[in-house]
C-alpha cells in the first residue's frame, strides 16, 4: 500500500470519527429516529425500482393477454391486425441471433484469451484495446446501426439489407459484453493451475486449451447468454438496417433480403397507432419477455450453480 492511499484512508477515518464525536451527543433518541427514517427512505427507493419492474410486466400482460395465443406463432405479419402474428419475426430473430452466436463466441473468447493470457499489460497497445473495449460497451446502439448501414449494408462490405448484415452488426454490438464476461471467467482460474500444467511440460496453448478453458466455461456461458439476450431485445440498430420494412415472407437463409425481428416487429405494430395493433404489440412483448426471462434465469442459475471457489 502506498503513502497516498494510506493518507486517504486516514483522512476518511478521521473525518468520520470527527463528525461522529461532534454529533455524539446531545440527543441519542433523535439519532435513532433519524436512522429509522433513513432506512425507511432506502426501502422506499428499492421498492420504487422493483415496483417499476412489476408495473412494466403487469402492463404488458394486461394489454396483451387478450391477443396472446397460438396464432402469434402461426401467423405472419398482415395488413389485417386480426390475422397478424409474429411467425416471420420470430424466425427472423432466430436467423439473426444464430449468426450472432456463430460470430461472437469464437471472437469474444479469443479476444478475452489474448488479453488475459498473452497480452503484456504494460504495453500501450494492450491498454488501448482494453479501454477501447470498455468504451465500445457503452457506445449507443443506434451508432452501431449507423456503422452497419455505412460499412456493412453499403460501403466496403456492401451486403445489402440481408439477415447477415443484421447478425454482423449485432455481433459488434455485443462483443464487448462477451469479452468482458469471458475475461472475468478466465481471470478467476487460479495461476497455480496454469503453473502446474506448464511445469508438466504442456505448452502455453495446451495449458489454455485443456486447463484454463474448461474451468472457465460456466462463466463464459453466462456472459454469452446475457449478451445474446441483449441482442434478442435490441431493435434500434436494426431499424437502420432494413429490418423495419414490411415483409410477409419467412426468412430462409442468412442471405434473405427483407426480414424483420421480434422487437422490430413489435415496434412496427406499435407505430401503426391503432388499438388492435397496439394490443398485438403488447402480446409480442409478452412472448419476448418470457423468452428473455427464461434465458436470464438460466444464466443466473448457471452462475450460482457453477460458481467455483478455488
Amino acid at each position, binding site marked *: 500500500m502506498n503513502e497516498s492511499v494510506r493518507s486517504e484512508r486516514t483522512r*476518511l477515518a478521521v473525518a468520520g470519527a470527527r463528525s*461522529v464525536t461532534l454529533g455524539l451527543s446531545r440527543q441519542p433518541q433523535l439519532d435513532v429516529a433519524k436512522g429509522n427514517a433513513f432506512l425507511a427512505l432506502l426501502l422506499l427507493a428499492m421498492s420504487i425500482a422493483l415496483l417499476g419492474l412489476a408495473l412494466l410486466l403487469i402492463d404488458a400482460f394486461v394489454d396483451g393477454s387478450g391477443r396472446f395465443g397460438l396464432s402469434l406463432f402461426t401467423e405472419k405479419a398482415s395488413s389485417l391486425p386480426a390475422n397478424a402474428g409474429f411467425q416471420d419475426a420470430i424466425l427472423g430473430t432466430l436467423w439473426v441471433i444464430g449468426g450472432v452466436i456463430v460470430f461472437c463466441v469464437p471472437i469474444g473468447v479469443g479476444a478475452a484469451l489474448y488479453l488475459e493470457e498473452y497480452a503484456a499489460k504494460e504495453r500501450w497497445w494492450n491498454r488501448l484495446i482494453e479501454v*477501447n473495449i470498455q468504451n465500445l460497451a457503452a457506445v449507443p446502439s443506434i451508432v452501431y446501426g*449507423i456503422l452497419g448501414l455505412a460499412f456493412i449494408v453499403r460501403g466496403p462490405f456492401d451486403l445489402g439489407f440481408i439477415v447477415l448484415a443484421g447478425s454482423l452488426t449485432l455481433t459488434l454490438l455485443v462483443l*464487448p459484453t462477451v469479452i468482458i464476461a469471458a475475461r472475468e471467467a478466465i481471470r478467476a482460474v487460479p495461476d497455480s493451475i496454469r503453473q502446474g500444467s506448464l511445469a508438466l511440460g504442456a505448452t502455453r496453448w495446451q495449458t489454455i486449451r485443456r486447463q484454463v478453458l474448461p474451468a472457465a466455461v460456466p462463466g463464459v456461458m453466462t456472459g454469452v447468454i446475457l449478451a445474446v439476450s441483449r441482442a434478442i431485445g435490441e431493435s*434500434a440498430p436494426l431499424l437502420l438496417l432494413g429490418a423495419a420494412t414490411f415483409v410477409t415472407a419467412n426468412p430462409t437463409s442468412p442471405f434473405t433480403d427483407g426480414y424483420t425481428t421480434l422487437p422490430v416487429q413489435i415496434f412496427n405494430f406499435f407505430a401503426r397507432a391503432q388499438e388492435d395493433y397496439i394490443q398485438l*404489440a403488447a402480446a409480442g412483448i409478452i412472448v419476448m419477455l418470457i423468452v428473455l426471462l427464461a434465458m436470464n434465469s438460466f444464466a443466473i442459475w448457471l452462475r450460482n450453480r457453477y460458481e467455483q471457489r478455488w
Partner: protein
Amino acid sequence: MPSRLEAPSRRLGEKAIQGLLALCAAISVATTTAIVISLLGPSLSFFGEVPIGDFLFGTEWSPALQPQSFGVLPIVVGTLSVTLWGLLFAIPIGLLSAIYLSEYARPRVRKTLKPMLEVLAGIPTVAIGFFAFSFITPALQDVWPGFLGDEPNIFNALAAALAIGLLIVPIIASISEDAMSAVPDGLREGAYAMGATRMKVALRVIFPAALSGIVASIVLGVSRAVGETMVVLMAAGATPNLTFNPVESIEAMTAYIAITGTGDIATGTIEYNTIFAVGLLLFVSTLVMNLISIRLVRKYREVYE
C-alpha cells in the same frame, strides 16, 4: 502471469494461435476505427454544405422541410431534457438502493434483490418504450395536478424520462454498490467503534469513500440515457422543440436518426448526411462521458484493491 516461466518455444502453431487470438482482440479496435470512419466521411461532406457554427448553434431543425434548416440545438435540448428529468428520478433511487444493498441488506436479501435489478437491466428497450407510452403517460395525465400547468401531451418528454430513469437505476445501483462494497471493512469498524450510527457510517464514511465509483455510475447512466433510442422514439415524439418543459412533445437526437434512417432516403443527399452529423455528435459526447467513467472506476479499484 506465468509467461516468463516458459522455455522459448519453436513451435509455429503456438505463435499462430497467439496471432489469431490477437486478431480477435484487434477486431474491437477495428470496430472503433470503422465507427469513426463511417461517421466522419458523410459528416465532412455535410459540413461542406452547412457551416459548423450554424449546425451547433442554430435553433431551427427542419432538414426535411423547405426551407431547410440545420440548427441542431432543438434535438440536443430534447435529448438533454429527457436525460435531465430521467436523472432526477434515477440518481436518488439508484443511490439509495445501492446504500441499502451494500450497507443494510442481509446477504440473503441481497442475493434475491440483485438478480431482480439485473432482470430490470435486461428488459428490452422496446418494452420499456411501450410501457412509457401505454402506462406512464396515461398515469401522468390522470394524476397531473392543475397548478403545474397543462397536463402532459400524448407524446411527452417526462414519460420517456421516467422510463429511461427506470432503465438506468440498475446501472447506477449496481456500479455504486460495487464501489461501496469495495470500501474496506476497517473503515466501517473504525467508525462504529467511535459510536457512529449505521446511517452516519453509510453517509459520512462509505459514501465519500466510494465517491469516484458513484460518480462513474452516474456518468455512465447519463451516457446511456443520451444514447437511448427506442424509449424516446416511442414516448417522446418527433417534434423538434427547443424546451426543457417536460410535458411537451420533443425530438431526441437518437429518435431523429432512427426516424430518418428508416425512411427511404437516397445515399449522398444532405438529408442522408444529417444522420451521420448527428451520429457523430452523439458518439463524441458519449465517448467523453465513457472515458471519464472508465477513469473513475479504475481510480476506486486502484485505491482499494
